[in-house]
Structures are given as C-alpha cells and as structure tokens.
C-alpha cells in the first residue's frame, strides 16, 4: 500500500492534547477543587487475611470535620461486583483478603479530618491464616481464601486455561533433544505517575456524576448503577485527563468510584478521593506473578516438535482479570512457533498476596519471558544460533498455529527477525562476544520474539461505535467509548477523520470520554483502540463524507462521483472550487443530517475452553527485539546498551505515537527485566513508594532503534494492527538472553538484579509489615 495515497495517515502529526499538557492546563482528577467539596479517605486492612469481628463507624462522625462515613452496608448486596467472577465488594464484607483492602470510607472537610475520621473507626479484625505461596494454594489443608465452589473444587482454585494439540508426551519420547526448565516472574507495580482517584458530584435528580481516572468509564458506570441501585440515566461517568494506566486503573478505581459516589449521595456534597502513593502501591492490583514449567523437544536438525507449558498464576485475593490473563497467557505460552504437539495448562489461584489484575501484555509478558528463555536454552543445547533457530521454526503465512488456526495474512515475524539481525550487527557481535575472557565486564547480545493476539479475542463481544458531528463553527466533534489515558488514540481518531473527510486535522476535536456523549464500546484494553475504534471512526467519517459529497454534487450540479477535492474545497466539472464551509451550509439548507454513527465489529471467532482449540484471536502482532548488554561480573550490574525493535504493526497511522509506545514499552520491559519486584512478605508489600520500588530513570534507558514492518492486515483500518502492549513484551527475555550470552549464567527468575546475576540467587531478606502499616496511616 503506497503512502502517496494518504494525506494524513502515516504522516508526521502532533498529539492533539500536547498543547494542554505542555502549558499545565490539562486537568487531572486531583486538580479539581470544587466549592463545598469533601475529601475522602478509606480505612484499609492492615492484615492480609482476617474476619471482620466488629466494625463501628460512629466514632468517626464525632471527629470535627467528618461529614459522612460508609461501609459495605451502604451498597446493594454489600457492593458485590466483579467480572468475570463476582468475588469482590465495594467495601469489605465479613472478611478482608489482602493488606490495603478498603473496609470503610470517610468524607470530611479536609484531608486531615478524613484521616482522623478513619483513625477513629473501631474495627476489630480476627486474623486468619493466609496463603502466601501460589504453589501451595491448592493443598488440601491450605487456608481458604476464595468462596466455596459449586463444583466442589478447591476454594482457592480460580480457573484453568488449556491449549491442546496431539500428545506431547508421545512426541517427546522421539525427540533426541529435550529441555525441561522452570521460570518465575514476580509481581510488577504499574507505577503510573498519577495515583488513583475519583470525584463524585451529586446531581439534583438524585443521581451522581463521577470524574474518574479509569480506563473504561462504561464499566465504572455499570458498577455504580448496580451497587447504588440508581437509574442508569442518572449516572454519568467522565474521564478527565489520565496520568497513565497501563492496565492498572480499572478494578480498584471501580471501587473508588463506588465509594465516593455513595459518600457524595450521603453527604449531598461533592466528594473527591485521591490516593497517596503509599496507598496506591499498597491497595492497587499488580501484574500477577507466574511460575512456569516448560518442556520442549526438538530434532537434531533443530526442528521444534513438542511443547508442554504448565503454569501457575498468582491471582492474589480476588479474581479481577486473572481468568482472562491466564487465558491470554495460555494462548501465547508456546511462543510463535510450529509444533507437532502442544499441551498448555495455566491455572490461576487465590492467595493473600495483594491482588493481581491487568497490566500491559496481560499474561503474555509473563509467558513470553518463559518461552523465549526456554527457546534460547534449547538453541544452545542444539548448538544453533538463536536467530537461526527461531527462523527455522517460527510462524509464517500459511502455517497452522498449535491452536488450530490457519494464518492467511499479516505474519511479519521473519522480516522482523531479519531486520533486527541486520540493524544490531548480530552475527559479528555474537562471534566477537563469545571470545571475551575479561573477569570484570563482558558484553552480550540476545534476542526474543513475540506474537500477541489483537484485541479481546474470544474473551468477549468485540465491537466499537464512534460518533461524528459537524458543529456550527464548522469544526468536527467526534466521540469514542475507547479512551485516551496517554497512549494516543484521540490523535489516531483525528487523523482518520481528517483523512476520510478531506479536511485539516485542526478542525477535528475528539471529546474526552463521557458516558453521556460516547457510546459503550467495551473496555479500553488489549491494545484494541486503533483497530476497533479506528475502524468505527472511519465508518462514521465515511458516512458523513458521503452526505457532504451528495450536497456538493447538488451545489455543483453534477453527479456525486464527478465531485473532486482540492485541499478542503469541492470541485465539479466546471472547475470552480467551493469551500468546505459552503458545502456544509448547503447540506444544512438541504435538511441533511450532519452527524453519523460508525460501528465496527471484529470478525467472529470461537475458542473451545475445554478442548483447548479454536481461533483465539482474529489477528496477531509479531515482533523481534535484540538487546545488547554490558555486565559487571564483579557486582552483577547490567547496563543495557542498545535495544533494536522490529514490530509488525500493520500500517502505522500515527508514527510518532507508535514510536512513543515502543520506547515506553521497552523501558517498562527493561524495568521488569532488571529492577522491578513488588515483593509480598507474608502478604505485606515491601516497597510502598518510589524510594524503594525502583523504575527506570532517564539514566537507565539505552539507545533504542525501532522499525515497523507494515504487513497489510485486512480487517484493520488502512491495514493497521496495534502496538501498545506488544512493545514491552519481548524486552525482558531479550535482555536476560543477552545476559546469558555475556556471562554464561542463565537467570530463570525475574528480575535479573545484582544478586541474581552475581550470585545466581536472591539473598534472603526478612520482610516487615511496617511500611504498609505506616503507609496506610500517613498524609
């Protein structure tokens, strides 16, 4: 597809929200200070597992400045909610299952008074034994975290997601080269710079308007309606600018929204709750930790034959998104390769280690570390170059995946691998670094590949609707239910609208997400906005363009197909241009409707959850990344020197935005590889602020080189796929494989910090509940 045919798609563009953000004008939820507004604070559990023996909130009301206090009694069915498993409460009911779980909430005139109110609440917790090791969560005598199950399975069992093809045990018997290893990833904190928050404003009709820095305002609205028993028309959720999310601002923020809304209705005043960083880290869900057991078999010539992947996922105290995370992990657990036989089983379990939920990559970040480490180890056993081994076995157009899905187009993995091989000068460096003898510092270079299913896949209904309208000042306003919390979809929608209407992008305004103006399009997750809402935007804009073309033809007295465009102007056979404004005016005078809806539904697919076969996703993003590292063998310090990334994104619509996603994703992957570990010791998080939970700074990032392999993806708008999640997924295994190349030491437990690189293990550290207990009671 030639770029010449587009005016705005794939061309340089500024972010539509850039101006507001560089001038400080952009308002985030914590920037709203309304007259009469109250500040809310939650009483949070200081125990990882306990029965609520006695809860008396009346003393809080005697604290000066405290106006209202709520418990689970203030919600319908105690505010029970959750999808896909309804196991969570808007405020704790009967039990707490993790440190940081909200038990009651107070609204007061000042933040200080709210905190004093929280401290005045009488809450007696009776400690229960906890489950802190996912590998023992299903032991017959393990303490019970989850509810009793109707199927009489262990109450701590949440779900199991399988993929089955043939019998790998039989095939493995025939394989001359077999690898069996175990890999572990740890919890990761999202570390969005803006903490969670919501502001609720009671409305005169008895309803409530909630500003919330969530990802998916329609889900927040659905939960508010359910737990408050309000008429849906009286509940409005607005998403202001959001200071990053990466999957992290959904479930916990649903609770926060419900809490502030209940307080606002009770106090009849606006109520805002914004979290301190300590509260955010302690109470928020994390990327799940995963224990992976992988067996691979190959022929001597390097043909991959069989894969077994038996994984356990620590979902923590609640289900949140873990059944879906585990499902995505299962689909990707064998990597982007052909096999004769595959058996994958990913089991998610309850523990009392905080709770786990969505985080960029959503199961694949974890699974990719496992399989791409194992593939590297197998290549080593076979004496093959890691890129050659991957090229020999990786998926190509025409292949049938282990799930039973035939790939008919848009599989750019070979090109991605060849691109990073060339860019990184791979062959020369592999040979050169293999000859190093220094005992002080050594360099290494490693690779990892990725496939990542686009959008929700067989997880659920997958469609989006965008709207478009020409305003009196000839600007064009568009709305989408798929929202922008920093990734950049509002700019993508702008470019698509400008392209289809043949107008300047400056005319286009994409409204901030608001449940009163946008149409529910499912959750803003799974890197689905460009494909789903991009297509919906295109359909809406095309519909409006046809209307205007019809009006232009009427004005120019010719057939609609003879109307041409020069810039924004319309031109007929007499070659006299008519401005966009005049055509809009004429369309109005004709009585035409100058607004449109555009709906797009993803192709229908099916997955059999019992047989473990089917078509899990309607398309895949493919990528390869190469990392070059320098390791100080004496202290185990790894410096990443370079990352080369080639991503098969399909057609790139907003190149600067896509590059930003790649750079940011790689940086999160680098943190995951080398430094980030949210450690729970007996259920207590050990790092509660950025002084001890370290994320990459400007001094940690390497040089990065990114290339897009734009294979055409026919369901995508202009052939586009996606980028947000896949950008980070292969980074950690590429870095760890490079560390192996440099040191000869295989790190199978993330992160590859100083101790693991220098000593091959993590030194035992005694945990402490102090940071959590103090963190929940300060500021």
């Amino acid at each position, binding site marked *: 597809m030639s770029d010449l045919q587009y005016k705005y798609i794939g061309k340089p563009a*500024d*972010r539509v*929200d*850039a*101006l*507001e*953000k*560089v*001038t*400080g004008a*952009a*308002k*985030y939820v*914590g*920037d709203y*200070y309304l007259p009469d507004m109250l500040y809310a604070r939650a009483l949070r559990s200081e125990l990882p597992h306990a029965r609520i023996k006695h809860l008396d909130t009346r003393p809080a009301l005697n604290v000066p400045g405290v106006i209202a206090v709520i418990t689970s009694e203030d919600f319908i069915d105690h505010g029970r909610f959750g999808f896909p498993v309804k196991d969570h409460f808007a405020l704790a009911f009967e039990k707490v299952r993790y440190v940081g779980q909200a038990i009651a909430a107070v609204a007061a005139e000042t933040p200080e008074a709210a905190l004093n109110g929280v401290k005045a609440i009488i809450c007696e917790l009776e400690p229960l034994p906890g489950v802190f090791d996912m590998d023992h969560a299903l032991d017959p005598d393990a303490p019970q975290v989850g509810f009793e199950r109707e199927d009489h399975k262990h109450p701590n069992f949440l779900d199991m997601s399988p993929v089955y093809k043939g019998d790998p045990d039989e095939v493995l018997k025939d394989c001359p080269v077999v690898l069996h290893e175990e890999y572990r990833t740890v919890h990761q904190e*999202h*570390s*969005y*710079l*803006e*903490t969670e928050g919501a502001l609720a404003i009671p409305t005169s009709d008895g309803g409530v308007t909630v500003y919330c820095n969530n990802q998916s305002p329609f889900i927040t609205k659905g939960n508010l309606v359910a737990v408050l028993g309000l008429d849906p028309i009286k509940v409005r959720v607005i998403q202001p*600018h*959001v*200071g*990053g*999310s*990466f999957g992290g601002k959904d479930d916990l923020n649903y609770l926060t929204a419900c809490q502030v809304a209940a307080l606002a209705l009770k106090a009849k005043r606006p109520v805002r709750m*914004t979290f*301190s*960083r300590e509260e955010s880290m302690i109470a928020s869900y994390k990327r799940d930790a995963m224990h992976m057991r992988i067996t691979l078999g190959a022929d001597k010539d390097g043909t991959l034959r069989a894969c077994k992947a038996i994984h356990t996922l620590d979902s923590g105290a609640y289900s949140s998104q873990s059944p879906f995370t585990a499902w995505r992990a299962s689909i990707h657990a064998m990597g982007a390769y052909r096999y004769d036989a595959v058996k994958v089983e990913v089991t998610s379990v309850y523990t009392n280690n905080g709770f786990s939920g969505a985080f960029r990559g959503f199961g694949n970040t974890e699974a990719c570390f496992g399989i791409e480490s194992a593939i590297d180890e197998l290549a080593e056993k076979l004496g093959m170059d890691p890129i050659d081994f991957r090229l020999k076995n990786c998926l190509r157009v025409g292949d049938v995946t282990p799930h039973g899905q035939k790939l008919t187009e848009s599989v750019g993995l070979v090109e991605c691998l060849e691109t990073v091989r060339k860019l990184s000068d791979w062959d020369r460096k592999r040979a050169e670094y293999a000859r190093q003898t220094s005992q002080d510092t050594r360099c290494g270079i490693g690779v990892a590949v990725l496939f990542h299913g686009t959008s929700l896949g067989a997880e659920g209904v997958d469609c989006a609707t965008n709207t478009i309208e020409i305003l009196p000042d000839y600007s064009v306003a568009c709305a989408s239910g798929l929202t922008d*919390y*920093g*990734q*950049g979809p509002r700019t993508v929608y702008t470019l698509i609208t400008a392209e289809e209407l043949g107008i300047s992008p400056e005319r286009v305004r994409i409204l901030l997400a608001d449940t009163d103006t946008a149409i529910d399009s499912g959750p803003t997750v799974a890197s689905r906005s460009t494909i789903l809402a991009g297509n919906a935007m295109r359909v809406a804009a095309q519909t409006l363009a046809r209307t205007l073309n019809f009006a232009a033809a009427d004005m120019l007295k010719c057939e609609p197909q003879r109307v041409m465009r020069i810039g924004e102007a319309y031109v007929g056979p007499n070659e006299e241009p008519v401005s966009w404004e005049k055509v809009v005016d004429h369309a109005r005078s004709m009585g035409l409707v100058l607004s449109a809806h555009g709906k797009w539904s993803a192709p229908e697919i099916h997955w059999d959850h019992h047989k473990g076969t089917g078509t899990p996703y309607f398309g895949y993003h493919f990528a390869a990344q190469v990392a070059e590292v320098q390791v100080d063998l004496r202290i185990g310090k790894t410096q990443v020197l370079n990352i080369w990334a080639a991503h098969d994104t399909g057609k790139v619509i907003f190149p*600067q*935005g896509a*590059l*930003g996603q790649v*750079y*940011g*994703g*790689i*940086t*999160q992957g680098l943190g995951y590889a080398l430094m980030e570990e949210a450690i729970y010791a007996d259920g207590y998080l050990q790092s509660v*602020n*950025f*002084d001890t939970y370290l*994320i*990459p*700074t*400007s*001094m940690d*990032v390497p040089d*990065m080189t990114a290339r897009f392999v734009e294979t055409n993806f026919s369901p995508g708008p202009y052939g586009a796929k996606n980028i947000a999640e896949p950008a980070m997924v292969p980074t950690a295994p590429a870095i760890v494989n490079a560390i192996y190349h440099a040191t000869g030491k295989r790190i199978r437990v993330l992160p590859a910090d100083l101790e693991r690189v220098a000593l091959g293990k993590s030194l035992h550290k005694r945990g402490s509940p102090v940071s959590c207990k103090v963190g929940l009671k300060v*500021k």
Partner: protein
Amino acid sequence: MLHEITLTVNGEQRTVAVKSHHTLLKVLREQLGITSPKIGCENGECGACTVLMNGKAVNSCLVLAVEADGAVIETVENLSKEGELHPLQQAFVEHNAIQCGFCTPGMIMSAKGLLDRNPHPTVDEVKEALAGNLCRCTGYIRIVDAVMDVAKKGDA
C-alpha cells in the same frame, strides 16, 4: 499555627497564611490555585511537583511553604507568553515528548532549570538533570531529544 508568607509566583506577588507543616506544593495547589505541579509521591522521588525556586529546580513537595517566604517561584503556567510557547514547550510538542502528560510540567521545569544554568549541555548532562523526574510512558528518549534540540538552537 499560621504564618504569613510572601512569594513571587509566576511574576505576581502573593501573600498567604500557611500552616507550619504545609509544603510549597500544597500551598501552590490548594491556596494559590496553581495545579501544574503534580502530586506524584510526596517523597521527593518522582519530580512531578518540580518548580523553579529562585531559578533552581526543586521538588516542591520537599520544601516547606515557610521556607519559600520571599522566594521567586516559577511554574510551567508562566512559560508561554501571549500565546507563544516557550522553546522547551514547543520542542516537547514537536518531538512528541508527551504521553499521559502527568510528568510533563515537572519535566519541563527541570529542563528549564538545567538550560538556565547550562545552555549547552551534553546528552549525559540532560539525562542526569532529568534523572529525578520519573516518566512511565515515554522511555525518556523523546524528552531528551526535545531538550537537546532546544540546547542546540540556543534559544532557551
């Protein structure tokens, strides 16, 4: 106890009564209505609250308001004049050095603090000056590019 302090904030003299334990960040946001310095960690770790105090980049969450008595404070709201963006703001827009935008005001103020004292920094000096400003979205690459671009043009 309340203390009356006088600050020059974005060129305007402001007198406010502040509590002893309240930070400059809290006073700027809650008493002076300036919300570009963000609450990120209140621990001096993330830099989202960075402002210039007497020309030097500081974490306003670590400065007590009473310590700022008599000081000249500048925030990102003051950088653009009559609709003209400051070169750093312009460079951040052009380089797409922004995603969620929450770190952006602090990041720009740290960069301004650097360029005011060292108009021609090296890449490593830029990275060091911004090391106290966390960004979770961009990977810093474009931010460093934007600052270097301004430094090269020498029009900061």
